[in-house]
């Protein structure tokens, strides 16, 4: 019994709620501007200072503070409006929500407001998943849920404050018991194929990745990113790293500086002539927001729902906004021997008047060497013999980007080499186009797949050699063979130091650390596959495998049935478990009777404990004292006025020692 009023919020639970909300807001700190999180922290501190130090809250009693609060509310709307140009978008909405929860915390007085704020906390938590659904985020969110539920548990028990640990344990128990229901609902809840209403404009955040444009510095920027572009699992045999060219946008037009794709062609994909091994593999592609997917050069079978374009890219009907997994087949030793004159003409286009020195050099090669192959060879030799440097941080090039690179700086990254090479080829009347994509990949022995990261972005060139067709030439390989054979980390040893994030695994090349990282990535891959990428397609595929149709009606029925069954089991289990566990006293007495029964004196159904004790004592005089004592303990524990846990304990230990 306590004197706490039912509607009163005690200091500990206010502090608890505030701390839980801080945890949730911390999850948003990566996306939200600093002033939002800082503002929230300030409001929380105000509330805490009120609870402990009596700092006044902005109520009507404190007119100035009260006005300040309203000014704050208006100010928040105004600032958010100014920053985002509206209050409707995702980021703006979350900024508003965070700050308004903070304000609400200030005026929280009753249990009603407490519950409302805790529920808003859950809502704020779910919005964090719009930014990241990674495993650490999920684990952290689980901790937030436990804290928020714990605050509700603490609030639901006014009066004697239970320990924080006990409340958290209860919250954890609730979550554990809810887990089966969650699993069933997660698997069976019918997933719609498309959004219910259009998403706000900023719902899809800008994602770093290859674009359909290449200008100097473009790929260099990508190499700063450690982010995974996609993961590839080969089904049987796998090509060497040097063969792994992951084909992306093909760039044909140039204005002298920037390369862009050629005119779209609706002609069907050209036939490829293939040799050697066919590799089949599946790729898990991270969202790109772009309408193409990546495949190993040269793709022969592309996934359903995509098509192969004229320049051998795999195009999808819609931008890839969610992580997808697809299978494809490719030959690494293949070439395309089909092109029409228009394509070839486009592959010779050069901006008039640009790069005079480069053109002169190419013309000279052309004069000295009649064959196209000879020109290609000469160009590669040129890159190899002249003091070219493969570097991420090339010296600034002034004036013409290609002339400046070839005859001045001579430092560059793959895009510099690719564009210079393509220009040289075109100037020598050899049709050439640039292919961008990724090259290589890091093998993960734990998960048996390759990780291709943004920093594996690469650019190479395809030249048209009349009798052989489009042939891949990688000028970067001439300058830095290691780049292609062993990957970018080996080619640029200093990369770790400049890129950051990879410093640890390059500088500290501990086998154990690497192993751990691979294991973590493999785990992530599983997580992505089983949890994050579970969608309508996978759902229906799963039900097809089981021979069930997966329309939403069937799913709803199954869902309802599953939840009912699981719910009934949970209820039955939690009630029955309690009963069996419940009566320690009766159990101890049953054990006592069982021991006597083994000596040939079972208790008759009609016999009360006292009668039984008298009868058995007479038959077993040696044990009579014990029998009398245990029966007395039982009677006191069971029927006594002041039965306590100590009595039950004494009975249990007496029965344990009892040996008639």
């Amino acid at each position: 019994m306590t004197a706490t009023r039912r509607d009163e919020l005690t200091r500990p639970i206010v502090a608890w709620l505030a701390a839980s909300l801080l945890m949730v807001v911390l999850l948003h700190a990566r996306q939200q501007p600093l002033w939002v999180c800082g503002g929230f922290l300030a409001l929380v501190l105000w509330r805490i200072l009120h609870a402990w130090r009596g700092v006044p809250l902005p109520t009507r009693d404190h007119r100035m503070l009260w006005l300040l609060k309203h000014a704050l509310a208006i100010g928040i709307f105004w600032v958010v409006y100014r920053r985002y140009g509206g209050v409707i978008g995702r980021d703006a909405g979350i900024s508003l929500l965070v700050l308004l929860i903070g304000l609400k915390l200030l005026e929280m007085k009753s249990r009603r407001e407490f519950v409302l704020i805790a529920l808003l906390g859950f809502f704020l938590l779910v919005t964090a998943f719009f930014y990241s659904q990674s495993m650490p985020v999920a684990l952290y969110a689980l901790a937030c849920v436990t804290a928020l539920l714990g605050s509700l548990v603490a609030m639901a028990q006014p009066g004697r404050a239970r320990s924080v640990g006990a409340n958290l344990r209860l919250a954890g128990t609730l979550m554990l018991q809810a887990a089966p229901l969650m699993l069933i609902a997660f698997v069976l809840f019918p997933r719609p194929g498309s959004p219910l209403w259009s998403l706000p404009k900023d719902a899809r955040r800008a994602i770093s990745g290859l674009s359909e444009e290449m200008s100097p510095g473009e790929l260099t920027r990508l190499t700063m990113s450690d982010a995974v572009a996609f993961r590839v699992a080969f089904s049987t045999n796998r090509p060497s790293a040097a063969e792994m060219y992951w084909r992306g946008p093909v760039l044909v037009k140039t204005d002298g500086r920037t390369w862009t794709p050629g005119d779209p062609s609706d002609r069907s994909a050209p036939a490829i002539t293939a040799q050697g091994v066919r590799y089949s593999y599946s790729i898990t592609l991270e969202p790109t927001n772009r309408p193409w997917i990546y495949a190993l050069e040269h793709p022969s079978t592309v996934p359903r729902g995509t098509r192969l374009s004229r320049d051998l890219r795999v195009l999808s009907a819609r931008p890839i906004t969610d992580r997808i997994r697809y299978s494809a087949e490719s030959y690494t030793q293949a070439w395309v021997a089909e092109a029409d004159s228009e394509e070839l003409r486009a592959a010779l286009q050069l901006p008039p008047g640009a790069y005079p020195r480069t053109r002169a050099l190419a013309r000279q090669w052309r004069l000295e060497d009649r064959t196209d192959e000879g020109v290609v060879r000469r160009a590669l030799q040129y890159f190899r013999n002249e003091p070219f440097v493969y570097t991420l941080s090339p010296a600034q090039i002034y004036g013409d980007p290609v002339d400046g690179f070839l005859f001045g700086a001579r430092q560059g990254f793959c895009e510099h080499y690719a564009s210079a090479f393509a220009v040289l080829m075109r100037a020598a009347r050899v049709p050439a186009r640039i292919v961008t994509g990724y090259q290589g990949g890091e093998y993960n022995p734990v998960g048996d797949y390759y990780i291709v990261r943004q920093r594996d972005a690469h650019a190479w060139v395809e030249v048209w050699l009349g009798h052989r067709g489009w042939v891949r030439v990688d000028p970067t390989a001439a300058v830095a063979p290691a780049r292609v054979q062993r990957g970018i980390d080996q080619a640029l040893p200093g990369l770790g130091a400049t890129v950051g994030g990879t410093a640890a695994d390059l500088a500290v090349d501990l086998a154990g650390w690497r192993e751990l990282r691979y294991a973590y990535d493999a785990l992530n891959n599983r997580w992505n596959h089983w949890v994050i990428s579970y969608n309508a397609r996978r759902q229906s595929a799963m039900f097809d495998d089981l021979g069930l149709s997966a329309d939403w009606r069937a799913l709803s029925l199954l869902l309802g049935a599953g939840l009912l069954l699981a719910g009934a089991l949970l209820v039955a289990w939690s009630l029955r478990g309690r009963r069996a566990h419940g009566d320690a006293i009766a159990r101890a007495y049953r054990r006592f009777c069982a021991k006597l029964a083994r000596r040939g004196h079972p208790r008759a159904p009609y016999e009360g404990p006292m009668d039984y004790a008298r009868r058995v004592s007479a038959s077993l005089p040696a044990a009579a004292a014990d029998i009398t004592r245990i029966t007395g303990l039982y009677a006191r524990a069971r029927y006594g006025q002041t039965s306590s846990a100590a009595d039950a304990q004494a009975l249990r230990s007496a029965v344990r020692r009892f040996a008639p």
Partner: protein
Amino acid sequence: MAPATVAGVRARAAAPPPPRIAGRVLPNRYGWLMLLVLGVMLLGSINYNNNLGYALTFLLMGVWAMAHVHGYRNLRGIEVLGARAAPVFVGEEAVFEVFLRNSGALAGRALAISAAGMVTTDAFEVAARGSHTARLSFPAQRRGVLPLPPLTIASAFPLAVCTARICWRGDVSVTVYPHPAGALPLPATDDPAAAVSGNTLSGDTDFAGLRAYRTGDSLRQIAWKALARERGLHVKRFAGGDAKQVELRLRDLQFIGDPETQLSQLARWVMDAERAGTSYSLDLDRVLLPTGIGEAHRDLCLQALAHYGSPS
């Protein structure tokens, strides 16, 4: 989840469950609010096709449902054994003691008893296999019988989103005596001698011996010394004490105020006579209580006053 019904909170083999007890677990307004928020979260998850959003929403829905099971379990072993209250005078607080027992193996947490939606106890806890006495006070405003309203034992444990309730309607009431009031002195005693002496206290001084205790004798007259000497329970007798007695008659008071005022005056007299040690009889026309003294007699008289005019 469908609200669980706790009808027959504890089914025992030997004894049937106590009658007039029924309970249920239902979402309260916080529970509905939580469902609303979860609905919005589900819509957002659907629209963004966000699987962690789905997972969190479903997890919380499961927690919401399990909170009801826990709420049910929280009240599962709770029984009301009974209630009682000591008689009071009008204007006082009638305090009902409600005896609760928890036959379950789980503590009944954050319980509160409310009656007729007006009176609510503070939150309390009944330990597993423990018991608790809750006190509910009601203002006694009218003379007669104050029945204990139907009680609701409720708990919002563990998440505040649902309320588990047990209703108990016990056949318990408290007698409310009339408020002792009135300025009239005690009526004159019948015994002329005593009337002459006029001093009721003198009787106490002339000790006349002991007699065996009879039910209804005043505590003040018990011979405590004799009791201490283990000679049994005796009552001291005083010379002339027995002779002093008053007759308290309702009809004598017909000239003052309304019946309630008359009853109040009678109650006042009963208390005065008791304090003075004067034996008294009570004549309420239809009810006649013979002369006597002591707490039992006083209570009989006050009860007669309390029930005066009621049909039974």
